[in-house]
């Protein structure tokens, strides 16, 4: 490997092309833009999203260079951003006008595009008020990247105007109100009892009979949020149960341990799939002793006899110029990523609606990992699994230390979703 001192490199680059490379603010030069590369030249991919996000907060005009060097960011060369990047350990390269023209020419000639980023999205994470930052992968990623967010919980969803947020994230909440059927194994665990009591109290405050009714009401508000133009990103068990809760608005699909009444024996045929985002014709799991909600998840991690082993999933490539949204969501420096379990790990192809865009799948498997679609005036994205850097995540496992995974390709998918609502909509080219 050849290493070049920045000052020597500066001299060479200025002489030849007027561009030079610097890492984490080591060298200062006159330039108009900073390119934050997102290929293997980047030393901290996750915090790079924080730099791009903070650039929006500074009111600076930034661009997301889709498919260019792993989905790089172009931000103005201002001292505040250099400082933020240097503190975060994010690599950047200063570009003068000539170098930038070269970059734009390359983008114009290939399957790449430059998408302006306009305004920092207002982010809300649906999570219990007392949940620590490492309770779900998104709060972990946002905290690590330095991206601010608000926490919302059932009272907020039911009482406040969700349109104050651009983007809402859901993680492993069970919107069927059955607490992920953890009753089977953890019914006496203090944290389980506490969560059940908390949810029951909330239900009563809102005049609802039980936890399933509460969660259905929350699901309905979230559905309406997307319909009216919001962005929704869900992972893990929230994906599957949100679909089921929306489809089962008027059907009892909760086991007797959660609401005191048996599931509607004919419930499956009464589900209204016309109202859901992604899924149709899923089959419900009626057995109370089986820790699964339906057949939506291909991996069924909590049902040992059905559990499927983890493989790898592959991100699809999209046309940056014709399909910028899907392209944004799959920007990564790796296209094949190790899979990881969650309450819901994947989505069977069989149950996906025809209009759903598959963003990542496992080669040869009947399931997919990462899907996206539009609904009303908004859009939604589902990513299966719990924590991209903790494939076998167990209850009580220690939190993932993202400082040890600054270039996690799995976590990048999460952060793509955080940033994509900031992108300015461009008219599709025809």
């Amino acid at each position, binding site marked *: 490997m050849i290493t070049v001192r920045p000052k020597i490199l500066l001299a060479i680059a200025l002489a030849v092309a007027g561009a030079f490379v610097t*890492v*984490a*603010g*080591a060298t200062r030069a006159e330039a108009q833009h900073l390119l934050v590369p997102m290929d293997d030249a980047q030393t901290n991919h996750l915090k790079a999203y924080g730099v791009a996000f903070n650039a929006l907060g500074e009111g600076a005009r930034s661009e997301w260079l889709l498919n260019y060097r792993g989905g790089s960011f172009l931000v103005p060369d201002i001292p505040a951003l250099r*400082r933020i990047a*240097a*503190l*975060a*350990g994010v690599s950047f390269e200063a570009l003068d006008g000539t170098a930038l023209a070269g970059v734009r020419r390359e983008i114009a000639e290939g399957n790449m595009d430059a998408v302006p980023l306009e305004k920092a999205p207002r982010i809300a994470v649906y999570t219990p008020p007392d949940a620590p*930052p490492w309770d779900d992968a998104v709060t972990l990623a946002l*905290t*690590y990247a*330095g991206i601010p967010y608000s926490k919302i919980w059932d009272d907020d969803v039911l009482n406040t105007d969700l349109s104050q947020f651009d983007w809402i994230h859901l993680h492993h909440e069970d919107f069927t109100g059955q607490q992920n059927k953890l009753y*089977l*194994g*953890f019914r*006496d*665990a203090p944290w389980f009892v506490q969560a059940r009591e908390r949810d029951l109290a909330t239900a009563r405050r809102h005049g609802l009979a039980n936890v399933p009714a509460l969660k259905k009401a929350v699901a309905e508000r979230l559905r309406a949020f997307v319909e009216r133009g919001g962005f929704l990103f869900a992972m893990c068990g929230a994906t599957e149960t949100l679909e089921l809760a929306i489809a089962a608005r008027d059907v009892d699909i909760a086991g007797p341990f959660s609401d005191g009444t048996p599931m509607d024996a004919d419930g499956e045929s009464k589900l209204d799939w016309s109202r859901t985002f992604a899924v149709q014709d899923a089959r419900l799991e009626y057995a109370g*002793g089986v*820790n699964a909600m339906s057949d939506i998840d291909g991996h069924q991690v909590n049902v*040992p*006899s059905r559990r499927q082993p983890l493989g790898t999933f592959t991100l699809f490539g999209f046309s940056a110029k014709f399909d910028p949204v899907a392209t944004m969501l799959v920007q990564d420096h790796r296209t094949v990523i190790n899979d990881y379990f969650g309450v819901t790990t994947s989505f069977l192809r069989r149950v996906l609606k025809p209009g759903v865009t598959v963003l990542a799948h496992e080669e040869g498997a009947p399931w997919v990992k990462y899907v996206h679609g539009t609904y009303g005036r908004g859009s939604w994205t589902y990513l299966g699994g719990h924590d991209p850097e903790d494939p076998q995540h*167990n*209850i*009580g*496992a220690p939190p993932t230390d993202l*400082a040890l995974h600054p270039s996690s390709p799995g976590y990048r998918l999460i952060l793509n979703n955080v940033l994509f609502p900031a992108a300015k909509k461009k008219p599709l080219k025809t």
Partner: protein
Amino acid sequence: MRALRRALVAAALLTAPLLAQESAASGALVSKALELESAGKNREAVLAWRAVLASGAVLPGVLGLERVFSMLGQEDSLLVVLDTLIPRLPREGALRSAQLRTLATVGLEEQAAAAFRAWRDDAPRDVAPYREYARVLLFNNRASAADTVLREAEAALGTTRALILEVAQMRAALGLWKDAASAWREAMRDQPYFESATIFSLTPTPAPQRDAVRAELAAADAPLGATQALAFLEAAWGAPRSGWRVLSALPVSDTAVAIWREFADESERLRAWTTARDVLVAIHGARPDAAVAIRAATAALAADDAATTLRLARDAAARLDSTRALAEALPLELEALARMGRATETVEVLRRAERVLGPDGARRYARTIAWAWIRAGDVAKARTALKDAPLEADDAVAGWLALFDGDLAAARAALRHTETPGQDAVSALSLLNRTRETRAPSIGAAFLALARTDSAEAARRFEAAATALPDAAPLLLALAARIETSRKDDRRALALWQRVAVEYAEAPEAPEAHLEWSRGLRRGGDVAGARQRLEHLILTYPKSALIHQARRELDALRVGAAAGASD
């Protein structure tokens, strides 16, 4: 191999008479089948085990077939055999167990459940169907289903007392750690040998739930096995001292001492030297033994407890014959005395031993004697000690003596080859590489104070030496600051780190100074100041090896501040 085969044949035949009249040929047939199996000739072994079956030795035949079919990946072939045998021998639990295992292995869960029900209905008061099926389910990671079976057993039999082992395993598999610990404790009342299984089962208990497990295993009426398991769990959870606290309360008995011996082995394996020392001292107290005393003294030395080492080495020497005492106890005694700086006594002990060791034998301890004098602060006598055992020019002891004399040139040459550099050696080498000076008595005095473990004096002298040795001033100030930090004198340390950071901003020690300055500010509650120091470090010294640590601490401050703001 032959002995193993004989044992297997014997074991196989022991079970055979339970089922059928033993034919005279059975033994030979079993032996042949085992031979084929151990030779890896599984297909031939299938035929041989079938012949065993035909001879009337049903159970050895079935178990043999189960093994070889498993090797061939044809587990389902056994089902046909069992379907024929079970109606003929419906009360034979071993056949039912084999059926459950096989059905579960090939994934026929519904059939396995049906087989369990059939067995249960045939023997409604028998615990075996529940136990065997629960075991099969647990083995296949179906803890919730095992829970259901065990609850059914409780309803049908009125108790799960006979199933307590399975209950314990099931609860642990479900993450019900407290209940699992309680079940293991009960299981060990009748079967004390389950302590290893308990440790294996409960080791994965997450930290927040460990107190509940501790409470269960330490209950007032807990059997000894539970106490033992708790101690080893503590060791497995990284707290061997807590484990010893549990065991040390046991009244002395042969059983207690046997457990202590196991725990001493474990502590030594974990290199938990202070714990190992205490356990071995207790064993020696209960059952005095020279070998244990030597082990305890060695552990004490590793724990840097010279006083205990000395006491135990002398105790061991009194119990050993003179040859073993000289070989095993004397080195420990001398080393302990040297570390304590009791140089006169060290010399006297060696002088007495010299009568047996001879001059050559005694000379081997010259370096120890020299170190004893250095610790006592008498460099001249250290030199004298080495007079009859001249060191190589590049011997580390010679290097240290030169350094104490302020002869930096000689020290530089000798210490370069030091084999096991401790923190002091690293500091000395850093200094010798930094300065071009060849002589500096003030430096010698500072390192001598350090060698005498007079840290306050050492820090003061290093700070003073910074004036005498301007080309190494930031390093000397940093050495003084590190000593003050380790003495927990934050006020003095902070002042020294600030001097390094401000007056020597270009020095290699500057990033460390900013990091320590930040830490000092944070400990004092000045989070904003701490953050400012870290940011300065990151932005000013982007090539520093400490930058990742600085970023990590900056993140921690940011998250901590956010958490504080939301509280």
